């Protein structure tokens, strides 16, 4: 039976690049599968909804009704990959609720494959958050995102254990360029004739990392 991946991009810290990674991943999945369902639980930060309004809906986990609306969708094995941009303010609540309702176990039973993409930082809240995830999430489902723009090559040793996906830092002028609401990574790949540009290579590198991550998950399942 085919499984449905659910990517949860999270950090207990604001402004570490969660939405950027969610955008990249959504566009990668759209390019590969033609479809993706994204959920934005990140309304206090730059919002995924503003970048990808056609595939994104807002969700909340600070009340039971919101949790039902979200989790009852995530647990469905419908072969449509899901991406969750989980805001820092919802980090603790989301994982506490997931543990309480037995999300990981039920997901495994239904052929849904949650992947937690933890965006690392060097502060204490991140260290605590990562330790909490290591205790609650099977290590095959936990991936650390080493965003060079944030950790500057100083990924804490404890977070380097297990699978790590590295996102290289872009120069500030390119960062400003990709932060425009109308910018699309896939459109850039399609339209930019010069494949040697830094941005072209950066996007391809990241898409390649996601492809590798997907393959490793498929291998684990088989």
């Amino acid at each position, binding site marked *: 039976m085919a499984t449905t991946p659910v990517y949860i991009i999270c950090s207990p810290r604001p402004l570490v690049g969660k939405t950027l990674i969610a955008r990249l991943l959504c566009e990668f999945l759209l390019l590969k599968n033609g479809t993706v369902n994204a959920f934005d639980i990140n309304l206090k930060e730059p919002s995924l909804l503003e970048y990808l309004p056609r595939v994104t809906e807002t969700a909340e986990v600070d009340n*039971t009704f919101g949790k039902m609306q979200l*989790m009852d969708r995530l647990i469905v094995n419908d072969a449509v990959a899901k991406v969750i941009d989980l805001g820092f303010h919802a980090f603790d609540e989301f994982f506490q609720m997931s543990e*309480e309702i037995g999300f990981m176990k*039920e997901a495994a039973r239904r052929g849904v494959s949650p992947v937690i993409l933890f965006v690392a930082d060097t502060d204490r809240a991140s260290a605590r958050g990562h330790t909490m995830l290591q205790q609650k999430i099977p290590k095959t489902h936990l991936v650390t995102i080493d965003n060079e723009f944030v950790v500057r090559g100083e990924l804490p040793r404890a977070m380097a254990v297990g699978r790590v996906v590295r996102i290289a830092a872009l120069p500030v002028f390119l960062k400003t360029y990709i932060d425009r609401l109308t910018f699309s990574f896939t459109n850039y790949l399609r339209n930019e004739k010069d494949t040697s540009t830094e941005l072209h290579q950066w996007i391809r590198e990241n898409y390649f990392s996601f492809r590798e991550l997907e393959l490793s998950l498929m291998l684990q399942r088989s």
Partner: protein
Amino acid sequence: MAKPVVIVVGADKGGVGKTTVSRTLLDYFSANNVPTRAFDTESPRGTLKRFHPELTEIVDMTATADQMKIFDTLNSGTPSVTVIDVRAGLLSPALASLRDIGFLDAAKAGQITFAVFHILGPSIASLDEIAETANFMQGAKYFLVKNFINNTSFFEWDQATYNSYFHRIKDATELTIPKLNEMAYEQVEVASVPFLKFVANKGTHDEAANYSFVLRGYVRHWLANVWSEFDRIKLTDLVGAGKSGARGEK
């Protein structure tokens, strides 16, 4: 033949969760393969019967005929466990009736296993019931149930008051029922099924239902916590049944 077991669940105060605790007991015994019958004294319309219609009979505990229906059938074989959900205000009179018919003496003599789950609310009036009820508890297992389902507190912040109620009765055992998410509780109410069926996503007649995964998760987590309390007090040993190995699966 196994010794008959009578479990009375009650309180003089209303709205403290007597029927909720009775329901968790019936689910617990069902999961542990302990044959059980139940009596609902909320006559004429019983809440417990709505959730467990096959096991439950509605009785009027003040009527002699219904008292006979409960207590004269205790030795008639299976099921050996009888759960009585006593409606609000009737706990003390019910215990007095049991004393009058010689039931408490039989329990004292070891002919019957008798347990009382006294459900407590967060008021002095509710706690005052403890002393009154304790007078009937010779020969019985007495459980003081702190029901947090209404997100309440039991004067833990005032140690003197707390001790004066909870540590006064020597042989009483404290039991804690944790809080259940309000929406999950309401959804089970609407579904009118036992907690176990709700968790298993089943309707009244075992047909597949479509309850929220989140709410089922909350109920499962809560029920596991309640049952761990029942395990802690060795409830299956009390009713003379070993803990079922198949429970986890169920």
